[in-house]
């Protein structure tokens, strides 16, 4: 083709969050020179920067002051004193958090590499908060039995991302900022490259590479109320699925209990940590009916479910009764100004409420997607339950399912997972490329196909005169997912969700965009992203419908118990020839001697 | 660049002093200024020295300032070296001429 733009790289990385940037860095350090990184937003805009709380690692820098209880003050551990934390403990907490669906081999690798990767971040320039003697400060975090979250105030992800990005630039990694990956080219289980769009010019490119890496982030945007950035539309997940790669455990999506009402923007866990109350419309602290001991400090999924129960029983607040009050007025202006200034700002800007004198309306918000592209501990994508690799295709971060988070991720473990497995993937890719991998022949028709899709979306002479707005379809999908595949699920709701997704998928065939220009067409991107949302939402609802148990974040009111007998296994979904998800299952990697499944009790 | 900035700031400090002095001594109280009035003061060689220093300071400050103003403009920026030379020439010329003037204030013999 005359108008075919081709770019080649040894390694092509899609996604410039922590996972993608680490992969690029470490591939470079391991001897590969020619690395390209594609990102649909500028690398520093990646969603990793939104992480607030911290990154987990058993550094043993601080401990609770003796005899002060679970919410008491922390102190640095004097040199020579006994450590309180260990990778093993971290491993156990993670497994327990995952409701035993996490693969223990991968978890072990992650917790063992954790301290080293945090130290490396520090040595590269991260400005972590410090203990009085200058070590990295740590704080408590939900589900971790000791203070293990290494943090930089409440912008940890921001600091990590900027640091690693700068170091990658320093190492000569080539970034393509504002390039959109449209398609992945896999044939005969061998990955050959991608089709990408230079957003600024609207030009299509065929990018060939010996190894392709996906670090495209999560898929929380399929819900109406979500803490995720607008970029988190699960593109990588959908693209891989369309290319014939299976998706794993897609039904597991974590809901955070305190998102700003109607928007989902995260109000930090610290609000409850500092003593905030949750109240329903009658002003009752309803948590006493669900977790009388821990009250507001019960684990995230439990609190989210309690809130949702109140809402569904008609005791919610707000215009549509879908909210709950987070009441911090009793803390007093002084404490709020000192400990939660950012939260106050947030509530002021986004809810129009000053938390000093009024409760803030909040609601559960889609927060983290545990499922994704199945990979092994070297980031190599696998194509079936036996672990057959897709040659030359790697993934890590939130778009991948390794699975270290199992059915429920612990806070601070995802920055860690993205970093550790991003780095490992980079190393594995370097080994793969240096072992003599070659560029594979590609079908140039792929570009044509994508160009066709785009012109269809832009076309105005639509079939049967019916035009659909992609934005409206996305909106309906999100509403349906929130209602039917949200905190609570059951057969009826999930069936409704399936039908809705199918209906919307059909309607999307007539979707037409308004912006017909080539240059920086975000309308077009929005439509493509909507298509991706539909693609993987179908997998989510089908996987969820099939899984007749409650485990971690997947809660079925019709099957409220965990069922290890039948369901201690990962869901794998392949796209079949009709475009429907075909489910199969994969065993969980469990060390039966060390960490056999137990009841998950807090 | 560092030096230009330095020079501007230090000369600015000096100018605060000189300017105040100049205003008070020369222009206050306001009135008719003629040779006679100037010579009253400039008979004293110390005043001469002060005025020469003032002249130097204000020239350096003003002209380096003018250079900055010009060079701030993106299109002019590439020619900053040439400009610096031109302005320096102006400065030196003005300084020599001004110094001659100051020296010229002498009681006619």
């Amino acid at each position, binding site marked *: 083709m005359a108008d075919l733009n081709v770019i080649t790289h040894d390694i092509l990385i899609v996604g410039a969050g922590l996972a993608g940037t680490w992969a690029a860095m470490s591939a470079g350090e391991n001897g590969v020179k020619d690395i390209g990184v594609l990102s649909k937003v500028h690398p520093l805009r990646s969603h990793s920067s939104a992480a607030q709380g911290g990154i987990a690692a058993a550094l043993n820098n601080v401990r609770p002051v003796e005899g002060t209880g679970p919410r008491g003050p922390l102190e640095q551990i004097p040199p020579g004193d006994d450590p309180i934390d260990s990778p093993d403990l971290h491993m156990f907490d993670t497994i327990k958090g995952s409701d035993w669906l996490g693969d223990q081999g991968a978890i072990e690798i992650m917790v063992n590499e954790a301290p080293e990767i945090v130290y490396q971040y520090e040595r590269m320039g991260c400005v972590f908060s410090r203990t009085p003697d200058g070590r990295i400060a740590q704080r408590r975090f939900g589900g971790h039995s000791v203070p293990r979250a290494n943090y930089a105030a409440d912008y940890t992800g921001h600091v990590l991302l900027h640091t690693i990005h700068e170091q990658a630039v320093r190492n000569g990694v080539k970034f393509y900022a504002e390039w959109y990956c449209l398609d992945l080219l896999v044939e005969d289980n061998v990955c050959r490259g991608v089709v990408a769009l230079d957003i600024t010019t609207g030009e299509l490119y065929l990018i060939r590479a010996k190894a392709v890496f996906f670090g495209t982030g999560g898929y929380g945007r399929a819900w109406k109320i979500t803490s995720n950035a607008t970029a988190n539309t699960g593109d990588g997940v959908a693209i891989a699925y369309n290319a014939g790669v299976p998706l794993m455990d897609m039904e597991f999506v974590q809901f955070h209990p305190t998102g700003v009402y109607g928007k989902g923007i995260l109000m930090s866990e610290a609000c409850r940590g500092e003593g905030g109350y949750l109240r329903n419309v009658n002003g009752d602290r309803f948590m006493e009916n669900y977790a009388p001991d821990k009250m507001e400090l019960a684990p995230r999924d439990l609190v989210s479910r309690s809130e949702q129960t109140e809402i569904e029983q008609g005791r919610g607040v707000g215009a549509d009764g879908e909210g709950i009050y987070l009441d911090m007025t009793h803390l007093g202006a002084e404490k709020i100004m000192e400990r939660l200034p950012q939260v106050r700002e947030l509530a002021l800007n986004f809810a129009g409420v000053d938390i000093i004198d009024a409760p803030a309306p909040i609601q559960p918000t889609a927060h983290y997607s545990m499922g994704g592209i199945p990979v092994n501990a070297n980031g190599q994508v696998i194509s079936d339950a036996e672990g057959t690799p897709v040659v030359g295709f790697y993934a890590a971060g939130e778009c991948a399912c390794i699975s270290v988070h199992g059915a429920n991720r612990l806070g601070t473990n995802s920055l860690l997972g993205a970093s550790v497995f991003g780095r490992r993937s980079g190393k594995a890719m370097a080994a793969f490329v240096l072992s003599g991998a070659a560029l594979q022949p590609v079908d140039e028709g792929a570009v044509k196909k994508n160009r066709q899709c785009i012109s269809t979306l832009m076309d105005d002479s639509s079939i049967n005169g019916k035009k659909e707005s992609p934005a409206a379809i996305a909106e309906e999908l999100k509403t349906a997912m929130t209602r039917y595949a949200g905190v609570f699920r059951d057969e009826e709701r999930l069936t409704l969700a399936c039908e809705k997704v199918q209906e919307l998928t059909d309607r999307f065939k007539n979707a037409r965009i308004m912006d017909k220009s080539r240059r920086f067409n975000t309308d077009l991107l929005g439509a493509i992203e909507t298509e991706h949302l539909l693609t993987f939402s179908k997998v989510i609802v089908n996987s969820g419908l099939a899984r007749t148990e409650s485990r971690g974040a997947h809660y079925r009111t019709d099957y409220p118990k965990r069922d290890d007998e039948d369901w201690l296994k990962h869901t794998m979904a392949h796209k079949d020839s009709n475009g429907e998800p075909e489910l199969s299952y994969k065993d969980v990697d469990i060390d039966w001697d060390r960490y056999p499944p137990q009841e998950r009790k807090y | 660049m560092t030096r230009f900035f330095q020079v501007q700031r230090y000369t*600015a400090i000096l100018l605060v002093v000189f300017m105040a002095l100049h205003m008070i001594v020369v*222009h206050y109280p*306001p009135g008719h200024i003629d*040779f006679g009035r100037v010579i009253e003061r400039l008979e004293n060689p110390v005043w001469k020295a002060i005025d020469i220093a003032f*002249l130097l300071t204000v020239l350096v400050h*003003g002209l380096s300032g*003018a250079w900055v103003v010009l060079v701030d403009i993106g299109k002019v920026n590439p020619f900053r070296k040439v400009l610096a030379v031109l302005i320096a020439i102006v400065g030196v010329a*003005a300084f020599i*001429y*001004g110094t001659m003037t100051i020296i010229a204030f002498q009681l006619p013999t």
Partner: protein
Amino acid sequence: MFKTTGFISFVLRRFTGVVLVLYLLTHIWVLGAANQGVEAFNRRMELFQSPVTITLEVLLLAAVVYHGFDGIRLLIVHYFNVTDQRKSLFYAAFATAALLTIVGGVPMLLFAFGIG
């Protein structure tokens, strides 16, 4: 952005600075008449003692004091960490300059129009 004290002061400072440089060069040329002797000097000075030029000189005074006090403000900002007071500092500099212009300018005008 264009209505901030910072920008306004910058424009004024720049403008007065340039005006002062131009004046300075003229000034040096004017005084240079002294080289040609007493008469030449006095003759040239006469040229500049009409009410009109003296009025202009008042403006010049305004420029000098404004530029000067604004410059002092910048020196203060440079040597002390007072950026939080940036607005008050500007108002202070401006007010002082205005005051001095009046204090110095009124007698000049009185003199110029022969009232003093």
